[in-house]
């Protein structure tokens, strides 16, 4: 599924549990939970079990057309885990995820701080700009940025030619993998930063003024006030935003897939999601793609295990 990085209402999990809860043992909460549980069991649980089974099978296009699959034992896993391509794709996805999460987050926070300093009219203007970027559908924004970076008629090459005086027309932005990911980063940050900015802004405005004023009177500078007071106050939001951004940026599919359709070398630019799709749906090796997907989930679990543990503790 395309998880759009663009929107991540941070909802949140970290608030302290309500102090008093209704008594244990009532069937009522189960009734409330039933529809969600049913949907998740049927539409996520069953496919997930199926995915795990497939990952231990020889499952190719013949099987998709009805021939019975044969057991493969751990073969799919060994193929994935000994495949050089897998580690390259994994490393690439990770590196991009880290850069994207950090950039989006820092920029989003700076934008939130900027919005707090602006007057009403200017804040409105900035909000409208950010809202437009945020509202753009992922596929649309990839196409628009692809057009702006077009090799022959792109506006970026034109402007660079004007500024530098050198001939940029004909410069392909997508063919070099590093440059490809640069363009991808621009797209992700452009769409993702507004969300972070709005959320952080809304969070930061909840910090009581009295506290900040008191700190200021005590001689705390802006940076100190930010890191000592504002950040701790919105800590829960930050955690949730970061965990979600990590999950979503690692699962990136639609944007990469669409951008590869515009230009670039597939093998050098595929991320985990795209690679899994390539191996499975495109090349018909469903067993191996299932194994890769399981490995990916395990990796994400490891990354977020601290957070999962914390959630468990707080939910107790």
């Amino acid at each position, binding site marked *: 599924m395309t998880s759009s990085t663009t929107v991540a209402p941070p909802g949140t999990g970290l608030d302290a549990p309500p102090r008093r809860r209704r008594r244990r043992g009532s069937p009522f909460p189960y009734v409330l939970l*039933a529809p969600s549980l049913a949907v998740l069991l049927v539409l996520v649980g069953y496919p997930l079990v199926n995915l795990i089974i497939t990952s231990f099978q020889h499952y190719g296009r013949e099987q998709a057309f009805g021939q019975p699959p044969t057991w493969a034992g751990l073969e799919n896993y060994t193929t994935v885990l000994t495949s050089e391509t897998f580690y390259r794709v994994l490393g690439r996805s990770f590196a991009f995820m880290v850069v994207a999460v950090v950039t989006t987050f820092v920029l989003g926070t700076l934008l939130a701080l900027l919005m707090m300093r602006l007057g009403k009219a200017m804040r409105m203007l900035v909000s409208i700009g950010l809202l437009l970027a945020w509202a753009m559908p992922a596929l649309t924004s990839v196409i628009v940025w692809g057009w702006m970076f077009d090799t022959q008629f792109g506006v970026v090459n034109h402007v660079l030619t004007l500024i530098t005086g050198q001939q940029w027309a004909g410069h392909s932005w997508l063919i070099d993998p590093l440059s490809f990911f640069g363009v991808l980063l621009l797209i992700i940050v452009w769409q993702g930063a507004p969300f972070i900015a709005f959320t952080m802004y809304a969070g930061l405005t909840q910090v009581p003024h009295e506290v900040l004023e008191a700190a200021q009177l005590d001689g705390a500078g802006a940076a100190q006030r930010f890191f000592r007071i504002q950040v701790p106050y919105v800590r829960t939001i930050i955690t949730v935003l970061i965990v979600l951004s990590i999950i979503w940026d690692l699962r990136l599919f639609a944007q990469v897939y669409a951008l590869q359709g515009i230009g670039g070398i597939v093998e050098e630019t595929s991320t985990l999601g795209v690679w899994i799709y390539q191996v499975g749906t495109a090349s018909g090796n469903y067993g191996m793609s299932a194994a890769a997907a399981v490995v990916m989930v395990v990796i994400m679990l490891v990354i977020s295990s601290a957070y999962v543990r914390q959630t468990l503790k707080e939910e107790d």
Partner: protein
Amino acid sequence: MKRNRLVATTVATTTTLALGLSACASGSTGTGTDGTSEGGAGDIRVWLVGSDTPDEAREYLKTTFEAENPGSTLTIEEQSWGGLVDKYTTALSGSDSPDLIEIGNTQAAAFTSAGAFEDLTDRYEELGGDDLLPSFVEDGTYDGKFYAAPYYSGARVVVYSKEVVGDTPVPTTWDEYVATVKAATTDTVSGLWTPGKDWRNGMTFVWANGGQIATQASDGTWEGGFSTPEGIKGLEQLQDVMLTANRAPADSDEQEPQVPFCAGQVAYLAAPAWVSGSIGADEDAEVPGCGSGIGSPENLSAFAAPGKTAGEAAPVLAGGSNIAIPMRSANKELAYEALKIMLSDEYQGLLAEAGLVPAKVSQADLMPDGVFAQASAAAAAEAISTPASPKWADVEASGVLEDSFVRLAQGGDVTEIAAALDAAIERTLNG
């Protein structure tokens, strides 16, 4: 006990929910559920790929079919070449399968070997028997059974406009050809238009120098042929042309060649013969061409890329399509009727007029006279197909050929590219 009650509630809620939803959906969708469940109602769906099949032929197929089979309807749904194998893998294995599909000849094996198509072996003679184009029959045959009939073939020719190249004589040998395209290159004009992703035309350089995509040893394993001395020589020559005689971006593909051609940015264009239709289209057509300028009938001409010795044609990729009836089609008999129409002289004549090579050997004389038909016929005589392996379609779907040729166009190291490409092909074909 409590648990059981819970489960019961869960099930009940889901059922209610699902019922409520489906009631609401069936009342409001309006999107076709026709033809899916009623057996023998006779609404068949034909999937044609890309815009290769001309509109006249589509119209002819629909009206003829509906006249011959009263009460039945035929709908043509156009698919795109990009991601075709992905889409067929799901769509053809489901209950809402189309009834008749076109598929690239090099992709057919992936599905014939998977049991995706109806077995047509018993009807081979009725469809034309040995009159059907042999290499396409081979593409549509797996394990001795005939699944996918030839649809058309499209040999690649070299197209040029006199308005751009002037009176330059038509080259007669491969070396002359390479020299000619280089000489026609300027700062804005590609001597030979070679966008990086166009491996299909690029293969001509490899074959012309004696290279191969892959060869099969007696024990059945495949060995990639790009790293052989001949393969390297071909790739080096192609890279030289890409870098010195080409202005197309290294990572662009061969789609819509009429755009740069009509802009006068292309001297020689290697493309399927039917490209003359797109180039010759009116300037204000939906897909605009330049029928009254660069692409006018007086200006436009073509030849088959010449081979090593004069009078021969260079080997080109045997492009084209097969047609097959998916296993899961609900209307196989009607689909077969439509298939027969598509192989008829009348229908194939319409394809031939658009520059395609017909599905039967005997239909070759349906091709209109003129330079394009002559060039097509000459090129088709030397056409070479891709390795005959059910896994070849996976090589194409993986994009490794496009990637490698893009790297060539960027000026990458030929030996490294060839070795990596061979390794990838061997991995897939032997895997």
